[in-house]
């Protein structure tokens, strides 16, 4: 399902890096290096990240709460704890979204669709993730020294807010493809890149087919958090299954975590990866046509315990950036 948007733009974004473990060369608006932020537990720390980014974005854009029509938020915690507990501090209509690490793209799609409505002028999309919170929820207790496989990714910590508006700016949201939940039966929850590659491939293929474009149309295809090995799997899978050969493809998770960081991890993960890399790196490298492919693995502790395979979903958002307009 591909939607075209006429009048939707990203105005600005506020990036916050909660903890810079293994992260190199990222210049976020705010870098805290603290998991707790003086809160009782780190789950509340993630709430504070979201509050800080929302306040930061409002301050950066000199906007007041009444200027924002809708807040859309997503995170990885149960019942979207971080999103809703952060949004209680703001007097703004609020929506929560969950599609794991594709939450940012889902948020952008919702925001863009809302903005087609004349009543809505400004929407803020916020996502956050927290390494300890997702380790505790999806894997083992934090202090438990379970050995990580080499294909395992490391959940990034922090939060990003983006202001989406219907007034013209230099970053245009041109179209988006809502992905289908894909499951080919793969079930290793440690190898998330392999879980998500089929859905990423399907969404890319469908987006290109429905817009009648070739892969060359895009200067860059940026996937969310497939990792070093996942991106290779995706490339070969695309070639074998859909006869698509794509060279200009990069992964935000790989760009977030440096290979020489000393620990054998396959890259970063979490809904934070994609927007953080987009706003701190990609938009500074003068790519004009960018396809963002957020990839989300939809497993839970229950699904692993009952030996179910892992479905995944990917949403694509196409951006057109005009660097002359400033």
């Amino acid at each position, binding site marked *: 399902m591909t939607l075209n948007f006429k009048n939707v733009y990203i105005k600005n974004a506020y990036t916050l890096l909660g903890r810079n473990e293994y992260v190199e060369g990222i210049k976020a608006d705010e870098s805290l290096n603290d998991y707790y932020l003086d809160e009782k537990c780190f789950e509340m720390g993630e709430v504070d990240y979201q509050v800080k980014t929302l306040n930061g974005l409002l301050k950066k854009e000199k906007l007041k709460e009444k200027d924002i029509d809708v807040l859309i938020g997503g995170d990885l915690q149960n019942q979207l704890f971080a999103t809703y507990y952060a949004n209680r501090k703001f007097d703004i209509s609020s929506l929560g979204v969950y599609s794991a690490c594709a939450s940012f793209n889902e948020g952008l799609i919702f925001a863009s669709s809302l903005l087609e409505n004349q009543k809505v002028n400004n929407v803020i999309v916020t996502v956050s993730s927290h390494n300890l919170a997702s380790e*505790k929820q999806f894997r083992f207790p934090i*202090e*438990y*020294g379970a050995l990580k*496989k080499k294909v395992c990714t490391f959940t990034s910590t922090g939060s990003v807010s983006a202001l989406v508006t219907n007034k013209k700016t230099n970053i245009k949201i041109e179209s988006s493809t809502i992905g289908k939940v894909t499951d*080919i*039966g*793969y079930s290793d929850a440690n*190898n998330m890149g392999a879980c998500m590659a089929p859905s990423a491939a399907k969404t890319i293929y469908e987006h290109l087919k429905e817009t009648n474009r070739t892969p060359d149309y895009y200067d860059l295809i940026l996937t969310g958090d497939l990792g070093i090995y996942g991106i290779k799997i995706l490339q070969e899978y695309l070639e074998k*299954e859909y006869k698509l050969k794509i060279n200009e493809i990069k992964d935000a998770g790989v760009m977030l975590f440096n290979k020489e960081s000393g620990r054998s991890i396959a890259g970063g993960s979490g809904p934070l990866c994609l927007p953080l890399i987009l706003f701190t790196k990609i938009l500074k490298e003068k790519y004009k046509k960018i396809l963002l492919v957020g990839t989300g693995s939809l497993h839970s502790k229950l699904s692993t315990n009952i030996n179910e395979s892992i479905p995944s979903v990917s949403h694509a958002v196409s951006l057109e950036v005009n660097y002359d307009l400033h």
Partner: protein
Amino acid sequence: MKLKEYEKLVDKHSKKENKLLNFFISFLFGGIIGVLGELFVVFLEKKFYLPLSEAYMYLMIFLVVFGSILTGTGYFDKVVSFAKAGLIVPTTGFAHTMTSCAMDHAEEGPVKGIGSNIFKMTGCVILYGLVSAFFLALLKGVIK
């Protein structure tokens, strides 16, 4: 693409652990713990004139306390990352799992947090330990 074909594709691109090396490291570290434990037992027997069964009991208590303290101070997971299963399989692993579960939920209070979560992962060890002990004792009785 069929699952089998996909798994092959994944295997081709994924980096794997060196199983033989890990096996050797685990054997080495597990063995070291075993030797130290045996020395501790001999020490208790010779110095404190404890009977063998009681000496083993004290060794167990020592290992659990030692594992828990190392977990609480945050060293255990770092040691495990190079000692591998050598530290997880002995009683130190039991203590480590128990303490890490309790630490995860410490903020939720002593009853709902620590109390109901401390045996979340190790509960199965206790339950099936008891069940198998019961049946083994029964078997012993029958044979005698």
